[in-house]
């Protein structure tokens, strides 16, 4: 294959602090050079003028639904949606059927992923057997088989003893434990954020307190064990402030925020549209303001989608009966540009750090920076092109997005994994 030159793009690489016009040369799937002008004969050229060239985006919170719920998504469809959203890698949550709680399932997932479009799939192993929260899973074997992190996502780690043990393993194995923070004694039966809108709509609430309390517990436990704690889809001001103060004290704690939580509020539930039902739920304008501050000041480490496909049949029911979750891979960058970059809240360097550099570092995987000799995983996007997201034109098998029909300013243009163009608009 001819070497590929990504010419004259605005290269944004937070790891080196670079934000300037550069040419990027790719040889044999790896980054060969990043320079002001690269002139060589016999090159294939990708004209990147007016495009941002960034290290490949990694969505560290995705539900690919395979094995077990292939009607909603498969590794094949999910990775195509990822590529269309500008992601070169995804971390797959273990709440499949069966749960990814053994090396056998981890290896099967990795094998299946090789049949896809090339988007890297990083399995996340379960903390407990069957994610039942009772007995630890085969954590060391999961690690050896390729699991990059531990989580019982879909469920919180309710048992504090289990959390402590998992963090002890995580410390020794240099893995991160990802927790969906929800005190279920407080949230049981809730279907949306507890507040003025839940009262108005007559829907049972998921209180902010139910998220904040386990975050406080997790921070204390991480400090005790030295295990790295990552808070999944953080959504409330209280929880964000808990993370901020723990970080200040040097606790090994990080967190991610989803695009829907920084873009929408609980008012979006007013028509009982099941596409606005997810857990954690859409919160108040004050919570959104807190998340935006956290994204800007570094309290928030990553943007992750919590891409959660559900079939039309599952979602086409009344609000209380519908399952939680929305898809998000194809709208994440558009929303981040709209709410974070175009509003002047964050720089492009910060945006790329949230999508690429930080999640790669958290999971301890290759990528997240434009290093000579590293695999050429690149995300190319633009800042201005107007486009409209339509679920029926999307790549996910599911259509449960509240952003169907939304107009965006800027978005993914090309996605490369190991130098291969796997998506191009």
């Amino acid at each position, binding site marked *: 294959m001819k070497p590929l030159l990504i010419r004259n793009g605005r290269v944004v690489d937070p790891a080196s602090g670079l934000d300037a016009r550069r040419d990027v040369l790719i040889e044999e799937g790896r980054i060969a050079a990043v320079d002001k002008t690269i002139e060589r004969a016999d090159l294939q050229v990708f004209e990147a003028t007016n495009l941002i060239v960034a290290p490949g985006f990694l969505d560290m919170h995705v539900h690919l639904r395979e094995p077990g719920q292939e009607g909603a998504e498969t590794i094949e469809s999910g990775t195509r949606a990822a590529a269309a959203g500008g992601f070169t890698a995804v971390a797959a949550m273990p709440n499949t059927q069966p749960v990814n709680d053994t090396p056998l399932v981890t290896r099967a997932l990795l094998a299946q992923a090789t049949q896809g479009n090339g988007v890297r799939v990083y399995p996340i192993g379960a903390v407990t057997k069957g994610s039942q929260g009772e007995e630890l899973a085969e954590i060391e074997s999961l690690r050896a088989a390729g699991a990059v992190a531990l989580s019982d996502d879909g469920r919180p780690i309710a048992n504090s003893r289990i959390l402590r043990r998992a963090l002890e393993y995580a410390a020794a194995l240099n893995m991160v434990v990802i927790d969906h923070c929800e005190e279920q004694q407080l949230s049981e039966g809730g279907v949306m954020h507890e507040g*003025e809108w839940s*009262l108005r709509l*007559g*829907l049972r609430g998921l209180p902010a307190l139910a998220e904040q309390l386990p975050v406080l517990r997790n921070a204390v436990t991480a400090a005790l064990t030295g295990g790295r704690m990552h808070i999944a889809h953080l959504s409330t001001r209280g929880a964000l402030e808990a993370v901020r103060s723990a970080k200040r004290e040097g606790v090994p704690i990080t967190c991610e925020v989803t695009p829907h939580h920084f873009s929408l509020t609980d008012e979006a539930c007013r028509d*009982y549209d099941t596409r606005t039902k997810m857990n954690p739920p859409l919160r108040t304008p004050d919570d959104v303001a807190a998340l935006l501050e956290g994204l800007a000041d570094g309290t928030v480490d990553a943007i992750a989608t919590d891409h959660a496909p559900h079939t039309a049949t599952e979602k086409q029911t009344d*609000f*209380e009966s519908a399952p939680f979750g929305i898809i998000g891979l194809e709208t994440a960058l558009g929303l981040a540009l709209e709410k974070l970059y175009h509003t002047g809240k964050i720089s492009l360097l910060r945006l790329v750090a949230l999508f690429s550099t930080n999640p790669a570092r958290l999971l301890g995987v290759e990528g997240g920076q434009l290093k000579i000799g590293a695999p050429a995983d690149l995300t190319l996007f633009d800042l201005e092109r107007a486009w409209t997201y339509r679920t029926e034109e999307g790549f996910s098998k599911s259509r449960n997005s509240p952003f169907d029909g939304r107009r965006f300013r800027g978005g993914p243009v090309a996605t490369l994994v190991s130098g291969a163009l796997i998506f191009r608009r």
Partner: protein
Amino acid sequence: MAARKTLTRLSQQHLLGIEPLSVEDIELVLATAEKYQTRPEASGRGETRPVPRLDLLRGKTLVLAFYEPSTRTRLSFEMAAQRLSMDVVNLALEASSVQKGESLLDTVKTLAAMRPDALVIRHPGSGVPHFLARHTTVPILNAGDGVHEHPTQALLDALTIRDHKRRLDNLKVAILGDILHSRVARSNLHLLSKFGARIALAGPPPLVPKGLEKLAPGVTVCRRLEEALEGADVVMMLRVQLERQREPLFASPREYARHYCLTPERLARARPDAIVMHPGPFLRGIDIAGEVADSERSVIPQQVANGVAVRMALLELLTGAHP
């Protein structure tokens, strides 16, 4: 109140709740319902009796789908329809395909395909009528959705209040008891607020949560029952909805009764001419004392009678009897 224009038809195709209705819509429903009340001259207590059978909606069909037990609301709708010569079909849920696992939407689409003229639905899920309304053009009448709204109850309550107080504006209304789980309370506070009433809520603290005062203008949450009752023109009691509580929110019915039952002593704080209302079924000695329920102050029987008149009005207005 500013001058209102008089409507001849509702601004809404469905009756999903009180919140989306305008004051003019409500006035139209009440004015239409008044046609269906008869007022014996002798009675000075605003007693009413529905008019005899009319032919207005002959040939039209009403489907009743009650996914939750109901006696009075279902019977009231049936009677209202029959008085207007409508055919009434009851969806017998125990025997229907719902028991065979058919989805709610499929059931309703099937019903809609039979082209009824209106569908009355009661469902334990808040927002179910709103969901169904997005998938059918058959007018839907919400007969109670979860803990969200029960609009026909609020309309019949408004008619009853007006019968007795001759107005809906400038009233002080106390709504007492389990507000959190009450769709009746939500519909009533929206309706009364639209007419400028001052509404005081009180009950056990977890059942009267913070934030209720934001639901509509004029609503205040009182810490004590006595405070809410002070100077009230109308006292609305609510049933304790034990079946909707996931966890016990008070120690026992006895503990509740001791502090929240409407006794003659508590009622003495309201205005001397205050009326007492209850959507029923009421728990004698728990949410309302027997001597209050049976007293001259209680308008509970008129509420029931007005229920038929209001539902007749809604059937007339929503099934296209008007051009």
